[in-house]
Structures are given as structure tokens and as C-alpha cells.
């Protein structure tokens, strides 16, 4: 019996039903064009030793070929649209993989060749480590940014009068920036921002006229998080 697996899907199904995988016959495998899923009509066929398998490209409108993809055999047909059929008679039991090189994602297949009495070939020895894929099993990336959301702590703020100026002492829990703002009569008269290291520090604002000033001290860390709590306020009279 010579079986040709025909082109349409319905006939393909019928043929699949009519032809159990163990059927003893020469087999034709048809290349099937499909806009999204080029494929072989039967990606897995079983034949016995001595039987012939034919790859048919009749009626295709895209370019295809067939090439062996396991190392135990060799077949390599030219790229062509509706090219000539190619055949192979298998003389030893085993699994023979093949592929269309232009559609390697979907057009893969294997011919399982059993011995005369239908027993499958013994499993081949595992390939050496240098031929076994070591797949990257990385889980999907979950974190694209790890931002510092911890607010620094500003405490021990002490505002004192110096000659024609104001000195602010403070403690900051992280490296950051401390801003000192002086107001007088409801108007901002001076601001000063300094980068400071973690720990205690001081800022002196000088060149002030005599009078009473409101002093507001705020801080941010280097990531831009403002110190928790409301800015520290004080009043100081400069003489």
C-alpha cells in the first residue's frame, strides 16, 4: 500500500484516522503552507525497516526544504517552491528527526523506524553534555527599580544666635541636604541649602540685620525623600 497524505485539513484528518501510526507502508509526508503555521502533514510517522518515506512539496506556494536535524542520518533537499519530492529508505531502527530550515519553528518532524517485528528502536545513548541544551530558567523580571523610600530623620535641631547671624545645629540620619529658611515679617529673607554627611552638623547664616527672624529647617536624603514630620521652626532675635 502506498499512502499519500493529501493537502486539505479534512482529508488529513481522515487519513490520520485511516492510518494507524504502526501501519506498515511506505509513507509520504506533505509540506503544508499555512499563513501562520507552516507544517508537515504528519509530524510523526512510524515505518518499519526497509520502508520508504517520501517528502512531497507538491502544491506549496512558499519555499520549503527538508533537512535532517538528528545526527543519525542525512538528508538535505534544495530550497524551492513546489519542488520535487525527496525519498529516503530507512535501513536501521531509530528515530530520525527532520526540519524545514526556513520554518524551523513549526515544520519539524520525526520518522520512527521500528524493526521488522514492529519493536521500537532501543533509546539512543544520551548525547554528551556539550550537546545538551542548558536552558535559561530565569523567572520573569519583577523589579525594574528599587528606590529608597525611607525618609531620613532630622532631630536635635538647635537654633542659636551668633554675631549678625544664625547658627543651626542638627542631626541627620542619612547623607542628604539640609535647607535653612529665614523669614522676617512674613517674607522669606534668606535660604541656604547645604549637602551634609550623615550625623551631626551645623549651618551658619550670617550677614543678617538686627531683628527677629523665623527659622525653618528641613532636610532631604540624597534620594530626595523629605525628613519625616513637619519642618522644625524657631524664632531667634539677631542683635
Amino acid at each position, binding site marked *: 500500500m502506498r499512502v499519500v497524505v493529501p493537502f486539505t485539513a479534512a482529508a488529513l484528518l481522515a487519513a490520520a484516522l485511516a492510518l494507524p501510526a504502526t501501519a506498515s507502508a511506505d509513507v509520504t509526508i506533505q509540506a503544508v503552507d499555512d499563513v501562520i503555521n507552516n507544517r508537515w502533514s504528519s509530524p510523526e510517522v512510524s515505518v518499519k525497516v526497509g520502508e520508504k518515506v517520501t517528502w512531497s512539496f507538491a502544491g506549496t506556494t512558499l*519555499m520549503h526544504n527538508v533537512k535532517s536535524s538528528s545526527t543519525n542520518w542525512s538528508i538535505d533537499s*534544495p*530550497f*524551492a*517552491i513546489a519542488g520535487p519530492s525527496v525519498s529516503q529508505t530507512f535501513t536501521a531502527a531509530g528515530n530520525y528527526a527532520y526540519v524545514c*530550515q*526556513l*520554518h*524551523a*519553528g513549526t515544520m519539524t518532524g520525526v520518522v520512527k523506524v521500528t524493526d521488522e517485528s514492529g519493536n521500537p528502536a532501543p533509546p539512543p545513548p544520551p548525547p*554528551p*553534555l*556539550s*550537546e*545538551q*541544551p*542548558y*536552558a*535559561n*530558567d*530565569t523567572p*520573569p*523580571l519583577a*523589579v*525594574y*527599580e*528599587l*528606590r*529608597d523610600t*525611607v*525618609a*531620613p*530623620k*532630622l*532631630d536635635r*535641631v*538647635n*537654633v*542659636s544666635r551668633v554675631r549678625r547671624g544664625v547658627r543651626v545645629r542638627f542631626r541627620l*540620619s*542619612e*547623607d542628604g541636604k539640609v535647607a535653612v529658611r529665614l523669614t522676617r515679617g512674613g517674607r522669606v529673607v534668606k535660604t541656604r541649602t547645604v*549637602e551634609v*554627611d*550623615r550625623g551631626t552638623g551645623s549651618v551658619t547664616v550670617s550677614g543678617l540685620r538686627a531683628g527677629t527672624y523665623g527659622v525653618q529647617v528641613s532636610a532631604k*536624603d*540624597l*534620594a*530626595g*525623600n523629605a525628613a*519625616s*514630620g*513637619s519642618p*522644625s*521652626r*524657631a524664632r*531667634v532675635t539677631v542683635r
Partner: protein
Amino acid sequence: MRNGFGSIALLCTVAAPDALRPRKATVTSAAIRSQAKSPFAPFQRDLPRIPELVPVSSTRTRDTYALTVREGLAEVLPGFQTPIYGYDGVYPGPIIRARKGREVVVRQTNALPFETNVHLHGGYVPAEHDGHPMDIIPAGGSFDYHYPNDQDAATLWYHDHAHGRTSKTLYYGLVSMYLLEDELEAELGLPQGEFDVPIVIADHAFNKDGSFRYAENVDIGFRGDTILVNGAVSPRMAVQRRRYRLRFLNASNARSYALRLGKGRPLLQIAGDGGLLTRPVPRARVPLHPAERTDFVIDFSQYGPGEEITLYNEDGEGGTVPIMRFDITGGRVSEEFRVPTRLRDAEPLPAPNARRTWNLALGTAAWQINGLSFDPNRIDVRPRRGSTEVWTFVNNSNRVHPMHLHGFLFRMMDRSSGPVELADKLGWKDTVGVLPNETVTVLAWFAPYAGKYVFHCHALEHADKAMMLQMEIV
């Protein structure tokens, strides 16, 4: 006077980045393997810095270098030795830093058992030194490549270009950078030294013994499941709170990337294939096709110590998503530098001399250009030296074709898929990714050298299967 005001106790501090944690000393490969999580876990290794090549001799006008193209071993996965081909046996190969106006001579000795040659990608190079696919160095031979360096500062790279073999030799490691500098660029005060970081991205796959796994796919080209950056799996880089210049090269066989930083934080692009743009362009998503380069300046001073920012590939999946992570370290920093708003003026070009169309398609036998495959005995086009021509690439396929001109640069004119990216309009390019079913028009300038060059698709499985034509500049 003491001010009493409330303070809220802090419960925790920022976790120290992995880079700061002490690591156990290890001796054997097995110990390294057993300690590592998965060898593919991202951000486990520090970004390797690519070594810089030192000239063997220098004169007033010329630096001479010597490289041997040979087999080597690289520790790509922790505890494994991966066989590679490498310039001086390292992957990525050593960087050559050149200066405009100073000639560079590279004596390449081929210690591989097969032919090789070297193409300086993006360089203005006389035809006989360009690495034409037919100009090869036989096994055991050597050749002195002369690079005049008459062009403006640019991030160039060099790789093997022997015909039919490039996809494998690039994959197995024959790639490195060639950084050309000039005075105009130096005057801009861009980050230098350790703050100027060349970064080579390539996708790879592995076998269980740690060797590179290569499966030829002439349709889409090779696709790996792992991103190597300077030869390490998605590494991390400790950065100070300041500006860095990062020079990215896509040295993948055929994979295109879409670079994205953190939650779309701006990447300030300052240069492309052909050097500095006329002005910097902030970008959130940067497509990077095979062989393309983009230079960014990233300002890490806007981040706080301990913060971690990931650069990732928006078009990837699984292991091809994370590219690298920047771990911000250090505290205060004072940096005067700001990126200038004008970087370089665009040169005036002569009016185009000719218009040509190149149809990119899967032909009757393989990938082809205008129905033709590469034939070294045929000249496909003869542009005039010093002229400009409008070249239109029409992609009639469902694959990306990064089209590359040897020896010459072009300016982007038009894309059928939408407006040309501003950054692509503001600088020279030597490679353009022509997207599926897209038409791209460029203005190519055929100067300064005459002679035989090629232009081809830089999806290397396509180029090796002869998606390449020959041009002779007359």
C-alpha cells in the same frame, strides 16, 4: 535655645546592594558552581570592563597594535569554561582607542585553523583594509590593517567578515570595540576614563558543559535565551552618583533590542553609529538593531545610595529581558559637568546624484536583495566618489533586516512605518533596521574612498547566506 520638635524613629534602613555584601572566597570551579544560584540568575556578576589594547609601538603620527585571532576560554557562566574565538583569545576582544588624525595600524595574525579577516564597522577605511568578505587572512597568515582615522569621533567596532562564516565567528566571540576620539568631543567634557563605559550586548545559548550552543536558523537568525553584557550574564554595575557615558553595541547575530531604563527614566542619547548627534535627545525606549551603537549619558546623581535601576529589553522574554542593573553607591558628589545642548554641527551634503531601490526578500534560493545574491565577481552598483545617493530599502518580508553599508555613512530620511526617531535624524548612521514590510529611505554619502565595498543585511545568518551586494565607488 533648643527647639523641641517631633521625630519619628526609623525602623529600617536601605538594604545594602549585593555588591557591598561580603562574598566567600572560592577556589574550585565546583565550589563556584555550587555557591551560585542559577548561573543564569541576573545581576550576580559585576560588569566586566573590557581591557584596552596597548600599542606595541607609537610614532608621532601612528600607533601600531598587534592582535592574534585565536581560540580561548572564557568564564561566562560561573564555574564553567566556555571555548571561544577571541582577539587575543578574549571575549569581548580588547578595545582599541584611537584619535582622529592619528593613523592606527593593527597587525592581525590568524591563529585559527580557518580563514578570517577584520572589518572595522563604521570606519572610513580604504577598500583594501575594510575587511571585504573576499579579502581574507589565511590560517597562519597575518595582515596589517591601516586605519587613517580621518573621521569624527565615533563608537566603532571590529569583527570577522570572512564570507559565509561571520554568524558563527561573531557568535563565538570575534567582536570588540574601536573608540575613535577627537578634539571637538574632548572639548565637550563628556565623562571619561572609568566613567566612559563600552558595553557589548549579545544573546547566547548554552550547553550543559558551559559551551556556547549555536543552532542555525536562516529564517529569523540565531536567537539565544540569555543576554551577555561584556561577556557576563545580565551583570550589575556599581555606579557613583554622577553622570556616566555608556556606549552600547548590539553585537548579537540577529536579535533586536528595545532598551528601557527603570520605569521609563530618560536615557539621554548623545551619539549614534556615526558619532555625536547635533544635540542630545532624551529617550524612554531605544530600539537597538544588530550592529547599531548608541551612546547615552545617564545622570545617576538623581538617585540615592542603595537604589537599583534596571536596564532591560522591552522586546525580550524570560532571560532576554534583563540587560544590566545599575547599583547606586557612594554619597555626596560634586560634578560641574552638564551635557552641552549643542554637540556637533551637521555637515552640508551635495544634492543627491541618483536614486536606487533595494528590495529585500526571500528569493527563490535564499534571502536576496533585488533578487540577487552576493557574487564577488559582479559589481551591483557604482556610485560616484564624493556624491550622495538616495537609497530606498523595501522590506518585503516578515523579518527585520539591519542594512549596513561598509565604508560609508548615511543620514536617515524617511520610514514608512512612522516618523524617523529624532535621534536618528540628528546624526550619521551606518546600519538601519528595516522593519517587516517597511520602506526606509536614507541619504548615503560615498566619501572619502573609492574601491570595492559591500552592503548587506547584518542579521548574520542572512548575510552568510549571501544577502549582500557589492558596490564599487568610482
